[in-house]
C-alpha cells in the first residue's frame, strides 16, 4: 500500500496503481485520450499529466505508478495550462469537421475539450490529411486521427493481426498498414476492433445507412434480420445499460423503419447447429471408422476469423466447417425458400443484416456468398449504424412497445441466443449433438457447459460418450474434446497447435473478436468497464428465459427441412447453406496469384 496526497487529500491506495487509477479511487477524474484501461498505456496524448512534487517535469498519470509519500496535484495552474496547450496542439492537426462527423456527440476528443474548457485554437498550421481509405468494411480518415495509437494496440496487442502501425516519422506520422497500403490490400481481417477503440471519427465502419435508406425508399421487398448480439447492445445507443434485453423493442424499431419482413438471424443460428452438428458427426464417424476427415473441425460463423485463417493459415481451410455464417444462410433462404413462398424473384428482394460486426460487410461481398448470381445479403448495418438510423427516423426507441420477429424465419431457441457470446456456438452445438447421439440431455447445470463460459482466452472441455444410441455406436467410450477461443490472438495459439500436429481437439469454436460477437467491431462503444460481462449476462438470461433451448427443438426448423431442404447436409443444404473458402496468404498474395476476383468495393 502507498500513502499518497492528491490535491491535498491524504489517501492510501494499492501501490501497483497508476496515478490515474489512484485518483479515480478518490473521485478525481483525470482526462485522457490514449489510455485504454487494462490494455494499453501508451502515453502519447500527454493530456493526463499531473504535477508530482519533486519531479522535474509533469508526469503522465496513466503510466506513472504511485509511490509511498507521493504528493500529487491534478489540477494546478501549471497542469491546466499544459493540458490546454496540448489539447490545442491536437486540434491544430485535426480537420475539425465536427458537425459532419459521425462521432459528433460521441467523440472523446470533443468531450475532453469540453472538460478542459478550451475555447480557442491558436496553433493553425500545416495539417496532415491523407485521402480517406474506404474499404468494404472500415473507413480510415486520417485527417481526424490524433495518433493516440489505441487502434495500434487493438490490432497488435489484442488481435495480433499487426496490420495497423505508425508509418513515417514525427509530424508526418500516419497510422496505416505497412507501406501506407490501403486496408483492403493488407491482411486486415476487418474485425473492426480499431473502430471500437478510436476516440475520434478517424476509424469507423464504412457507412451503409444511405444504401439501406435507398432500399427502403425503392419499394423493393426489403427483409431485415438481426444477429443475437444486437438485442443486448442496441439499448446502449439510447442510453440504456449494457446487456439490457430489448429484443421486442428492436423488432418494433425495425418495423417502424419500414422493413417489410423482420426476421431473426437466430433462426438460422438454430439451423447452423443442425447443419454444423451433422457435419461434425459425419467427420468424426469417418475418422473413427477408417475413412478420412479433417479434424478438428472449426466453426465458420465469424467472417473476421475466416479472413484471418485465409491470410495466415491458407493451407488449413479444410479444418473449417463448410457452413455459411447464419446471416448469409438467412439471406440464401430468403431469396429462395421465402421468395418462392411469397411469389417474388430473388433479384427483386433485398436483405439487410444488422450485425455486431464490420467483417460482415466484407463477407457479403465475397463471391462465395451468392446463389444464382444474386448476393445472399445486400447490406450490413452495424449496431451503431442501426442506432443512427433509428435516431434519424425519429423513433423513440425506449418508448417502443415489444413485438415479435416474423415467421417462418423468426422463431428461435435459447441455443441461438448464445451464438453471440464466446463459447455459445459450442454450447449450442453440444446441446444438440449430445442429445442426438445419446438420446439424453446434455448433463450440465442449466445446460451451460461451465468450462467454456466466460472470457478466458482459450477454454476447453471434454465429454466422454458412455452410452450412445445404436446409430452412433462408433462413439462409445470416445472422449470428445472441444476448445473455444475468441480473438485472433487466441486463434493463432490453437492454429499453431494444429500446424504442429499437436491439437488434441475434435471441435473448435473461434470468434474473431475477443469476447465474441457481443464485443464485435460494430457494437456500441462503451465506457462501462463491465460491458462484456453485462452483455454476456443479457444473452444467457435471454436463453434461460425461453422454453425451447435446443436448436433441434425449433419447430420451424423441422418444417423448413420438410418443406424445402430435405435433410441436413443434403443437396439443397449444400446449394444454399454451405460454402468454400479462398486461400489469400499475406497481403492477398495467394489470392492475387490465383486471379481470384477481388471483392467489389460498394463505396
Amino acid at each position, binding site marked *: 500500500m502507498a500513502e499518497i496526497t492528491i490535491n491535498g487529500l491524504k489517501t492510501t491506495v494499492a501501490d501497483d496503481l497508476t496515478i490515474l487509477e489512484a485518483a479515480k479511487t478518490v473521485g478525481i477524474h483525470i482526462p485522457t485520450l490514449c489510455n485504454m484501461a487494462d490494455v494499453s*498505456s*501508451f*502515453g*502519447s*496524448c*500527454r*493530456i493526463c*499529466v499531473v504535477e508530482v512534487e519533486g519531479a522535474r*517535469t*509533469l508526469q*503522465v498519470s496513466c*503510466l*506513472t505508478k504511485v509511490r509511498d509519500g507521493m504528493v500529487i496535484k491534478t489540477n494546478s495552474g*501549471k497542469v491546466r*495550462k*499544459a493540458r490546454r*496547450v*496540448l489539447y490545442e*496542439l*491536437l486540434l*491544430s*492537426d485535426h480537420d475539425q469537421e465536427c458537425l459532419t462527423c459521425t462521432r459528433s456527440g460521441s467523440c472523446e476528443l470533443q468531450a475532453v475539450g469540453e472538460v478542459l474548457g478550451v475555447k480557442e485554437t*491558436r*496553433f493553425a*498550421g*500545416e495539417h496532415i490529411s491523407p485521402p480517406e481509405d474506404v474499404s468494404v468494411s472500415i473507413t480510415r480518415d486520417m485527417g481526424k486521427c*490524433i*495518433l493516440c*495509437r489505441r487502434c495500434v494496440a487493438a490490432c497488435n496487442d489484442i488481435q495480433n493481426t499487426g496490420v495497423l*502501425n*505508425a508509418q*513515417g*516519422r*514525427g*509530424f*508526418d*506520422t500516419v497510422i496505416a498498414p505497412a507501406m501506407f497500403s490501403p486496408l483492403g490490400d493488407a491482411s486486415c481481417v476487418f474485425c473492426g476492433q480499431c473502430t471500437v477503440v478510436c476516440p475520434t471519427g478517424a476509424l469507423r465502419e464504412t457507412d451503409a445507412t444511405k444504401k439501406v435508406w435507398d432500399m427502403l425508399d425503392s419499394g423493393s421487398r426489403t427483409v431485415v434480420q438481426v444477429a443475437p448480439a444486437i438485442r443486448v447492445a442496441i439499448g446502449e445507443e439510447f442510453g440504456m445499460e449494457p446487456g439490457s434485453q430489448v429484443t421486442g423493442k428492436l423488432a418494433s424499431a425495425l418495423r417502424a423503419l419500414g422493413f417489410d419482413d423482420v426476421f431473426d438471424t437466430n433462426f438460422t443460428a438454430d439451423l447452423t447447429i443442425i447443419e454444423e452438428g451433422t457435419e461434425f458427426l459425419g467427420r468424426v464417424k469417418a475418422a473413427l471408422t477408417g475413412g478420412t476427415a479433417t479434424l478438428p473441425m472449426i466453426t465458420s460463423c465469424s467472417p473476421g476469423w475466416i479472413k484471418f485463417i485465409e491470410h495466415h493459415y491458407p493451407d488449413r481451410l479444410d479444418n473449417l466447417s463448410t457452413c455459411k455464417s447464419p446471416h448469409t444462410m438467412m439471406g440464401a433462404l430468403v431469396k429462395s425458400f421465402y421468395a418462392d413462398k411469397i411469389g417474388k424473384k430473388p433479384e427483386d428482394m433485398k436483405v439487410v443484416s444488422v450485425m455486431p460486426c464490420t467483417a460482415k460487410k466484407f463477407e457479403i461481398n465475397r463471391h462465395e456468398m451468392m446463389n444464382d448470381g444474386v448476393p445472399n445479403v445486400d447490406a450490413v448495418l452495424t449496431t451503431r449504424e442501426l442506432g443512427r438510423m433509428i435516431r434519424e427516423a425519429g423513433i423513440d426507441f425506449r418508448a417502443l412497445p415489444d413485438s415479435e420477429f416474423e415467421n417462418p424465419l423468426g422463431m428461435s431457441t435459447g441455443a441461438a441466443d448464445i451464438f453471440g457470446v464466446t463459447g455459445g456456438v459450442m454450447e449450442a452445438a453440444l446441446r444438440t449433438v449430445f442429445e442426438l447421439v445419446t438420446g439424453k440431455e446434455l448433463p450440465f447445470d442449466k445446460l451451460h457447459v461451465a468450462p467454456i463460459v466466460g472470457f478466458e482466452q482459450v477454454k476447453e472441455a471434454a465429454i466422454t460418450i458412455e452410452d450412445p444410441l445404436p446409430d452412433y455406436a462408433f462413439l462409445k467410450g470416445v472422449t470428445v474434446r472441444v476448445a473455444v477461443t475468441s480473438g485472433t490472438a487466441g486463434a493463432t495459439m490453437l492454429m499453431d497447435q494444429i500446424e504442429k500436429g499437436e491439437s488434441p481437439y475434435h471441435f473448435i469454436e473461434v470468434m474473431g473478436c475477443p469476447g465474441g460477437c457481443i464485443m464485435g467491431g460494430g457494437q456500441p462503444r462503451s465506457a462501462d468497464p463491465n460491458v462484456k460481462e453485462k452483455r454476456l449476462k443479457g444473452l444467457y438470461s435471454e436463453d434461460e428465459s425461453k422454453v425451447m433451448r435446443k436448436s433441434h427443438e425449433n419447430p420451424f426448423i423441422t418444417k423448413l427441412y420438410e418443406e424445402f431442404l430435405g435433410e441436413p447436409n443434403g443437396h439443397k443444404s449444400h446449394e444454399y447453406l454451405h460454402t468454400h473458402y479462398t486461400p489469400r496468404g499475406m497481403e492477398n498474395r495467394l489470392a492475387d496469384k490465383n486471379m481470384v476476383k477481388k471483392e467489389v468495393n460498394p463505396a
Partner: protein
Amino acid sequence: MTESIKTLKQLEDIKKAYLDAQEKYDYIVYVCGGAGCVAAKCDLVRTTLLAETEKAGIGGKVSVIQTGCMGTCAIGPVMLVTPGNIFYTELNAAKIKTIVSEHLVNGNVVEEYTFFDAALQKHVPKMDDINFFKKQVKIALRNCGAMAYDDITAYIARDGYQAAYTALTELSPQKVVDEVKASGLRGRGGAGFPTGIKWQAAHDQKAEQKYMVCNADEGDPGAFMDRSILDGDPHSVVEGMLLGGYAIGASIGYIYIRAEYPVAIERIGEAIDQARKYGILGKDIFGSGFDFDLEIRMGAGVYVCGEETALMASIEGHRGEPRQKPPLPFQSGLFGCPTNINNVETLANIPAIVKNGGKWYAQYGIEDSKGTKVFALAGDVVMTGIVEVPIGMTMREIIFDICGGIPNGKKIKAVQSGGPSGGVVTEIDLDTPTDYKSLQQLGAIMGSGILIVMNEDTCMVDSARYFMEFTREESCGKCNACRLGTKRMLEILERIVDGEGEEGDVELLEELCEVIANTSLCGLGQTAPNAVMSTIRYFREEYDEHIRDGICRAGVCFTDHDKKAYPQRLRGRVL
C-alpha cells in the same frame, strides 16, 4: 589462427615485438585518417608518400601509419613526422614530394608546410609547441591520431587490453565498479549520469542474462567525437565494453551504431574480429572463465534512437520510439533483461581508468565533474575539429586559446553548447567553466560536447529556427507534445524569419516551450525548446526587431524567402 592470449607475458611479447619493429625505422610518419582528412584526400597523401619514399630509396626506412583523427579537421590533410614531432598541414601531393626530399631524405624540416598559427602569424612546426595541442589532456582520445587504428598489436603496444587483463584475472567485478565510481566519470553522451552508479545498479541486479550496450548513435548536428573514437581507436571501445560486461555480469554486448558511419562500422567490426582472433572476445577470455562477445547493430540514423529506450526498441527490431521510464534499463532493458548503456566516449575512458585507477582520472576536472571531455568545435572558429580538455576549462580558453578564436576579424556573438538540445552562451559568459552545472545555469548544457561558434553575422532567431527544424525533423511522432509542439514552434519561427511575425508570437513560443519541456515523453522533446528559450532569454530584442521593425540585424532573414540558405551554410561548415 592466432593463439589466444591467456597470459600477461603474451601481451607483453606482442608489445615488444611491435615496438622493436618500429625501432628499425628512421622516421615514422603518422598520416591522419580521420573523417575530415579522408574528405580532404589524405589517401592521396599516403600513397604519394609511399611512392616518393620508395623512389628516393628510403622506403625501408620510413614507416607510414594511417591513424585516426588528430583533431585539426580544419587544416587537413595533416601528418606528424617523428622523431621531432613535426606537424605538417594542408598537404597535397606536391608538398609531399618536397617533404620527402627535404625532410625525410635530407633531414631539413620544411617549415612553410608546417602548422601556421593565425594568431601569432607564424609557423609552429613542433606539435608540442602548438597551442591547439598544448592545453589538451587526451584520455578518451589517447590513441586517436597516435597509432594505426586497424592494428590490434599497435593498440596492445600502447598498453591496450592490459586493463582488461588485470580486471578479468585479478579484480572482482565489484572492484572494477569501484574504480569507475572513484573516477567520478559521468556519462559523456549528454545526460551526464554518474557511470559508476549506473554500473553498480546493473551489477546488483540478479539475472541470468544481462546486456551491455554501446550507444554509438551520435546524432547531434556538428558532433563527431564518438565517430572520431570509433574511427581512430575502436579497440578502446571494445575494451571498455569488455570491462563493462565483466563489471555488470553481461555476456553479450551490442554496439548500436548509425548506418551513416560506414567507416566507423567497418573499423569497429574489424576490431571485434581481431579481438576474437586473439581470444579477447569469446569464451574464457584470458583464461578467466569469463565469456563476452560483441555484436554490431546498425541504426537507420534516427536521432531519437540515441535515447536509450528508443535505442533498445530499435535493437529489438521495433520502431525506434522511446518509452516511459521507469523501468530503467538496469531494471528492465533489452529483451526485458537488465541492461547497461554507455556512450562511446564514456567507454573509451574506461580502460584508462581501470588501468591507472579512478583516483588518477579524478585528478582532472572539477568538484562534481571529474576528468576530461571531448568537444567538437564547429562554425565560426579558426580551428574546427575536436579537442579534449579537463572539465572546467572556460569556453574562452577552448575557443580562443586552443582553437585560435574567430576567423576574419569578426566578433563572437554566441556559442551554441550541447547541440539542438542545448542553448546559447553569450560573449559575456565565455569565462564560465564548461562543466555540467555551470552550463545548465546559463540555460545551455554540456550535452555530448558540441560547441557551435557563431559570429556577429549570425541571426539568433534564424539559428533557433534551424535547431527547431532539426528537432521537428527528428521527433519520432509518438507523443503529442513533441510531434505537434515542435512543428508549431517551427511554423511560428518560420513566419518570424519570413517577416510575417505577429505581436504575441514570442509569448506564444514561450508558452509552447514551457509545455513541451514539461510534458514531452523523452529527452528529445523535453529539451527541444531549449534553443528557442535560450535565444529568447539572451536575444529577445532580435525577435522583437524581426516582428515589429522588420529588421534582421545580421542581414540573414527576409531574403527572397530563401529559408534554407543559412542552414545550408551552417551545415556546410559543420559537417
